[in-house]
């Protein structure tokens, strides 16, 4: 191995002596950057685990690493994305450094019968054999991927080759032969082939240019929340679990002593041993820390469509963490959906059920905040007390209807704390039909919230939370 300093490929090469350990640490670093909680103990475990498996088997290597480092499904998803990239890069950069290449050895692929190749590819995809798929991907690239060096953009080339091969998930009579219709290919399997294609094209590109493309964090799109609910629930969950701790400890100080204690018969009897079986000293059940009561009201109207998925995932995460949580969705009317969340775990199912049986829209489908407050207050006014926290998720756009600020103020005064999370950037508040200012006065805090980062900052503010007087 050549001196690390001479390497033009990224700063991480200097981090330590070249070798597997350094690579692994770098990989873990990158995982951390993407938000996977990889602690030192995980890394130690990973090394211990890798000693037990033959490192030549890629599957074992990957699984062993995953079992010790990625500890939830979301983590695992990120792990897969990064693993591919990182170890692929590692191998390629090594190859460049040592001047290993295979360009010269490649034979002319031009004479290859395209139809035959097409058939072979189809066969390999259906059988799902990775090795064969890789080889065929190379053949395909050699055959008609690089006439004129390709477009230089990997994604475009992948699609072009796929089209040329006539691979599609739907059954459609291919252009030349209308007779024998090939069976459709499973989407998942086709994706696998595309991955191979992409990889080989990348390898090719790297070899040609002798540089690695700059390593960049996973595109925000990959992990953004508002668009794809199931992808990064983990981030929301993390923020919410933080919030949970904060909410749970707040307001704990003044909890009463001695009042409402119940006698723990079991422990009293045990304690009575010291006195020969005569229960002289009463033992009480330990007081469990009181869980805060939380009411969440979530706007699901069309004006917040993009955000409501995010909000629902926040709700979803909240439900995981709090037992005493009641959630409501509203548009024109309000409807309690606590049950839905308690009985469904799968996020998509929840979203479906809420849209199908929420029963919150009347005719217009426009939010009516005033009416929502009225209904909310009549429905649960008795339950609201200074211990409860109300969180509103909405854009405060009343569509020109009466905002009923006084009712909102009433809710705010009954509840211990009231927070407002607005999916719009602060810039847009109070423009148009937004009456945020009117409501904001009664809130303990109003926050813009359309990414997990905002959610985290909300949590932080709550943490320093000044309880309302």
């Amino acid at each position, binding site marked *: 191995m050549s001196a690390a300093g001479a390497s033009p490929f990224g700063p991480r090469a200097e981090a330590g002596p070249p070798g597997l350990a350094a690579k692994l640490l770098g990989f873990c670093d990158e995982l951390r950057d993407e938000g996977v909680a990889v602690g030192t103990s995980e890394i130690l475990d990973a090394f211990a685990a890798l000693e037990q498996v033959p490192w030549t088997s890629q599957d074992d290597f990957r699984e062993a690493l*995953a079992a010790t480092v990625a500890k939830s499904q979301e983590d695992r998803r990120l792990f897969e994305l990064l693993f591919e990239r990182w170890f692929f890069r590692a191998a390629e950069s090594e190859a460049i450094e040592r001047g290993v290449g295979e360009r010269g050895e490649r034979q002319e692929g031009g004479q290859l019968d395209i139809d035959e190749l097409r058939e072979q590819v189809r066969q390999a995809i259906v059988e799902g054999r990775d090795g064969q798929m890789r080889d065929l991907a190379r053949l395909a690239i050699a055959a008609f991927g690089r006439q004129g060096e390709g477009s230089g953009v990997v994604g475009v080339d992948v699609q072009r080759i796929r089209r040329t091969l006539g691979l599609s998930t739907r059954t459609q009579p291919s252009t030349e032969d209308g007779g024998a219709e090939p069976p459709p290919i499973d989407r998942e399997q086709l994706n696998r082939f595309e991955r191979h294609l992409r990889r080989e094209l990348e390898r090719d590109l790297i070899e040609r240019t002798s540089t690695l493309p700059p390593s960049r964090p996973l595109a925000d799109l990959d992990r953004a929340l508002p668009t794809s609910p199931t992808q990064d629930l983990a981030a929301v969950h993390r923020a919410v679990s933080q919030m949970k701790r904060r909410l749970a400890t707040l307001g704990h100080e003044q909890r009463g002593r001695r009042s409402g204690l119940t006698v723990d018969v079991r422990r009293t009897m045990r304690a009575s041993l010291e006195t020969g079986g005569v229960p002289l000293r009463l033992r009480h059940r330990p007081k469990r820390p009181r869980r805060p009561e939380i009411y969440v009201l979530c706007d699901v109207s069309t004006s917040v469509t993009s955000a409501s998925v995010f909000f629902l995932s926040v709700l979803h995460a909240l439900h995981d963490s709090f037992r005493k949580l009641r959630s409501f969705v509203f548009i024109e009317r309000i409807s309690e959906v606590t049950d839905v969340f308690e009985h469904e775990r799968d996020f998509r199912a929840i979203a479906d059920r809420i849209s199908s049986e929420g029963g919150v829209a009347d005719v217009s489908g426009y939010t009516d905040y005033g009416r929502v407050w009225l209904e909310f207050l009549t429905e649960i006014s008795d339950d609201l007390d200074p211990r409860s926290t109300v969180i509103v998720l909405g854009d405060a756009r009343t569509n020109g209807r009466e905002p009923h600020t006084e009712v909102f103020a009433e809710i705010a005064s009954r509840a211990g704390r009231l927070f407002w999370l607005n999916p719009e950037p602060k810039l847009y508040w109070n423009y148009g039909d937004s009456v945020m200012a009117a409501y904001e006065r009664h809130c303990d805090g109003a926050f813009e919230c359309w990414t997990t980062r905002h959610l985290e900052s909300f949590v932080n503010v709550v943490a320093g939370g000044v309880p309302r007087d």
Partner: protein
Amino acid sequence: MDAAPAPESVAEMKEALARAQYLADESAALVSFLAQRLGKPILVEGPAGVGKTELAKAFSRATGRELVRLQCYEGLDEAKALYEWNYRKQLLRIQAGGESGWEEVHGDIFSEEFLLERPLMKAIASSEPVVLLIDEIDKTDQEFEAMLLELLSDFQITIPELGQVSASSMPIVVLTSNNSRELTEALKRRCLYLWLDYPELEREMEIVRLHAPDLTEALTQRLVEVVRMVRALDVKKPPSIAESIDWARTLLLMGAEDIDRETFAQSMSIIVKHRTDIDLVAERVGLKLPGASAQAPG
């Protein structure tokens, strides 16, 4: 039980599990192997009915270790999971030995003789190595999870009156979770993580074949395909692997030759167990099956 020699590689582990009637996929075999080698607990997550608990059982059969099981539920506390002082016996001891001095009695009644072992304690104190299954850990509250930490990382339990009880033999711990809530980081940190999902078509066929060997090949494939079809629907409770096996056995008993609409309608309740699901499945899957006769069954 005579302890089988410990598997030396992932492949051997897989074989050993297969001998114990459990067809593990690559990752399950690998993680089991690592757990046994590194002495770390396994945390198994996945949808209900993919064989999480079964993995632990097979593990115990494969390694010839005894299985100690702790079923978790809401409200489970230390007294039921760890240990408890046998208070009646202690009382008897005090009353029986009236004339002996306090010191003696005191030292006596807080000895192991008066300790009631609960599953966790039993797993630790056992002289033979065991497999400890902590089932559905997500059903307990976080306080209980915290209590487990000492056990999971150091395999020891601290009893105030006795001091620390350390494991005399390393138990293999398997925790299962249906993922109904997020477990704490601290717990996850101590475990190897394994996500079990519904098996691939081939593997599920193998599993069914293993448990219902008399079923014809074609019918097995048919059955697994139908089950997968049902799973792909949006049903309340997707059919588990165990239910596939049950269904296979039922079909054997019925002497069915093929899964046609009639057989399906008759035996569907084995894999679908919700009123609304039954309607949905009958409509979506039932109609795709070939009719037994010219007329579809009403």
